[in-house]
């Protein structure tokens, strides 16, 4: 019963190899890089849509990749509750493919921003956050130009417990200084109603090794460890 994870390689993805490295070499789960046209859901227990600039972000970030056959396959996984995580561009793709609600717009400052931020755990029941504590503050880096989350259905998101992370200060307050891109209500990541599909702008794969973190933290690992645990529980 080996757990198998896929990282989908869309044309223009950049953070695919990073995710494969963390999952294979740091977490230790069998992970394959799969070319988007070759992706078949039956072979995998979980899937990662990595960051990058799929199709150059042309027209709108994530829109062209959203039409890839890989998303049709992933939709089957969504229906039967296998964990799906979309990181940065992956989040944008999930939103355009309507796995998750809302939209990701250009950063308020109209510039790309690359820096480490703090995100607070709002929902620790999802497939990727159940090993976290509610109100934990995690240090994870962002790097994006179109990360401003927007929805006209905020009430629904709140009622269904779909808000998973919010940008915060180190001690957990949701200030505007802590919000790097102008996202509505400082929202950094959301999930589907079933709590199995997570989309977030920050990059947990860049925060999984102490050698890369400004304060030697490894908060990124918990995402993937939660996913493995969740899969194990499902399979038994």
């Amino acid at each position, binding site marked *: 019963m080996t757990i198998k994870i896929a990282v989908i390689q869309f044309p*223009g993805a*950049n953070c695919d190899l990073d995710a494969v490295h963390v999952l294979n070499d740091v977490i230790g789960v069998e992970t394959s890089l799969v070319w988007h046209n070759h992706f078949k859901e039956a072979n995998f227990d979980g899937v990662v849509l990595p960051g990058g*600039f799929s199709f150059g972000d042309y027209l709108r970030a994530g829109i062209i990749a959203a039409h890839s056959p890989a998303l049709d396959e992933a939709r089957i996984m969504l229906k039967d509750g296998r964990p799906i995580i979309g990181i940065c561009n992956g989040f944008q793709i999930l939103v355009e493919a309507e796995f998750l609600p809302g939209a990701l717009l250009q950063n308020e400052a109209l*510039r790309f921003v*690359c820096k480490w931020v703090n995100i607070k755990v709002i929902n620790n029941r999802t497939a990727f956050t159940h090993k976290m504590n509610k109100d934990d503050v995690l240090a994870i*880096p962002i790097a994006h130009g179109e990360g401003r989350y927007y929805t006209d259905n905020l009430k629904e998101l709140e009622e269904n417990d779909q808000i998973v992370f919010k940008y915060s200060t180190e001690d957990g307050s949701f200030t505007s200084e802590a919000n790097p891109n102008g996202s509505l209500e400082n929202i950094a990541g959301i999930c589907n109603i079933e709590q199995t599909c997570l989309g977030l702008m920050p990059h947990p794969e860049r925060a999984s090794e102490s050698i890369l973190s*400004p304060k030697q933290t490894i908060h990124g690992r918990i995402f993937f460890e939660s996913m493995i645990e969740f899969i194990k529980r499902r399979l038994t």
Partner: protein
Amino acid sequence: MTKVKLNGEEVNIEMTKDEFEKVKELLDRDPTITELGGFDVMWSEHCSYKSSRPKLKLFEDAEANYDYVLAGPGEDAGVIDIGDGYALAFRIESHNHPSAIEPYHGAATGIGGIIRDVLCMGVRPIALLDPLRFGRLAGNSHSQWLFKYVVKGIADYGNCTGIPTIGGEVEFDDSFENNCIVNVACIGLGTIEDFKHAPSRAYNPGDYIILMGGSTGKDGIHGVTFASRTLTEMSEADRPAVQIGDPFTKKMIIEATLEAVKTGFVRGLKDLGGGGLTCATSELTGDGNTGANIDLRKVFTAEPGMTSYEIMLSESQERMAFIVKPEGLEVVLNVFRKYEMAFAVIGKTDDSKVLKVFDGEELVVSLPAKALSESPMFKRAEKRPEYLERLLAQKTPEPTIGFKDIIEKLIASENICSKEWVYRQYDHEVGVRSVVKCGDGDSGVLRIIGTDKFIAASVGVNSKHCYLDPYEGAKGGLVEICGNVIANGAKPMAMVNCCNFGNPEIPESFWYFSKAVEGMNDFCRTLRIPIVGGNVSFYNEDEVTKTAIKATPQIMIVGIINGFENIITLPFKESGNDILIVGETEAELGGSEYHSVIHGLEGGIPPKIDEEKIQARWNLLFELYQEKLIKANHDVNKGGFIISITEMCFKNKIGADMDLTGYNIKKLRDDELLFSETVGRFIIETSSKDYDRILGLAEKFNVTVKKIGSLTSKPEINIKGLKQDVKLNINKMKELYDSTIPNLMEI
């Protein structure tokens, strides 16, 4: 423009009448219009280096003299063996003229070009660095516009291709106002095996020639000769010679190329940049000692009805030429199909040593393959500019404001202040290799995943110093950039340079280039640093005002650190520790920020380099590293050592109580002591319990090391030992340091 008669018709060409005659002599006939277009482009300054080659011959043969240098100048990128089975390829290029006209696309396509050069060595590009020059920003909307869009162009292209920009440098000076400098560097990583099988040239007859990537269009025709002309003459008419980059296609090309190379069937690889298909095919066959038979009708074009001239000279971006073994053709083409990259088999190599290009039935080019690279060389005249005497004799007036005010003005000045506004726009973490990030060190440090080995890289030079003395300034650049990697714990391994100068046909401008090359040559030979590549950009001169840019021979150094625990970073770590300075300060305010910001002066005596002292200091530092005695290190440059110390206080809000009594060995004036930019000094943080050991070693290595202060937990810097004590507030200094560029750019 020269007018010549070709087959009865009058034609405009860029080359001189003499060069045209030489072409006819080489071919023993009139060239066809396509052949002539090829020579015109290949013999331009940018492609042929005709003015610089005679001088560049001074450099020693890096491949022959250093056993770890696998590829030297002349290849698409320099390659060095860094141990543990790994090799690094790196190169630096200029894209100045296109960026001055159209900063966003000019800078973006500059990045596109340098990525391709490294990719040609068959290795994955893993880092970018960008040293830039602009006119001063304050009150100058043109400079602000150029700066904003060059940075955005580099950011958008680099981010989209997923290659982190890990370092760079910006200097602002009036001389760059109409001739901005945009140099771009790229580092690629592979194994020695990758490199041994690296595609190089078309050495075998009977191989297929395949074009892959973007389609060939009418853009940029004669983009290269445009770079060899000064801007004011050509600008209006040259509007079409700036191309639009496509980083998405570039990213696909990177993946497709690397996968194709892994099949083992790719024997030659060349990107299509300046000079387009003409340059690529002639270099592949010329260097490979073969010939080729190419059919232009097979080339996939962006629009119908393109002439053979247009196809051969097009500089459409994002195209690569592959030389493929016949038995591997389908395997390689299947890789291209997987990535949905357009391709065309356009011909085959043969042993004729002649490059034959057909347009259907018509033979439009038939040249000895080496002909296009046999440009005449020019021995240019050089003459030391007369204004230098007066400039060097400039004396420093006594300051009329207090030192606290001077230091605050300096920390906020454009050339010293924080460049965070720039590097926040670059994804400097993609690839999960970035260990020492912008702001934490003098160089960018990357890990090699799966090893305990790290790469440090830095780029830059001080143009104001080079303006006053290009020989010492070029040496100084080497000392400074080597110092940057050494400050992070790395041993400098190799250098590439990008020479940005004025019009080589003007003796005073050529003199700057000549002296800079001599400086680089002398220093590198003495300190044993191989020069593995270089780029020359001439004609950075405004014809109307007759001003050339300040001489800018950019230096890039790559170094290696073995062991994570041996990486040193810049910020001060612990209150109570000692602050030591390595190296004496001389009265060398020439070309300093203190001179220009406080006194409005450009002259004075610039720093001189003593190779023996520099080598001794470096040896001492490595000994101290070995004994793990250094907690933080920052090399001293713009603004002098007091600025360096201030910068080290910022991150952890650690203060300093300083006493300079005893350091002023040469009895300098207070301002000379604080603000002199004497090259090759370091500020190090050490534990007071190690003081005696360190001083003992310093004596053994014959290096001046002095304790000049102690770290405190108060957010202040107190300086004693000058005529008047100085007290600086660190929070205020940080605010000044952080806000200059955002205030200027948030328009």
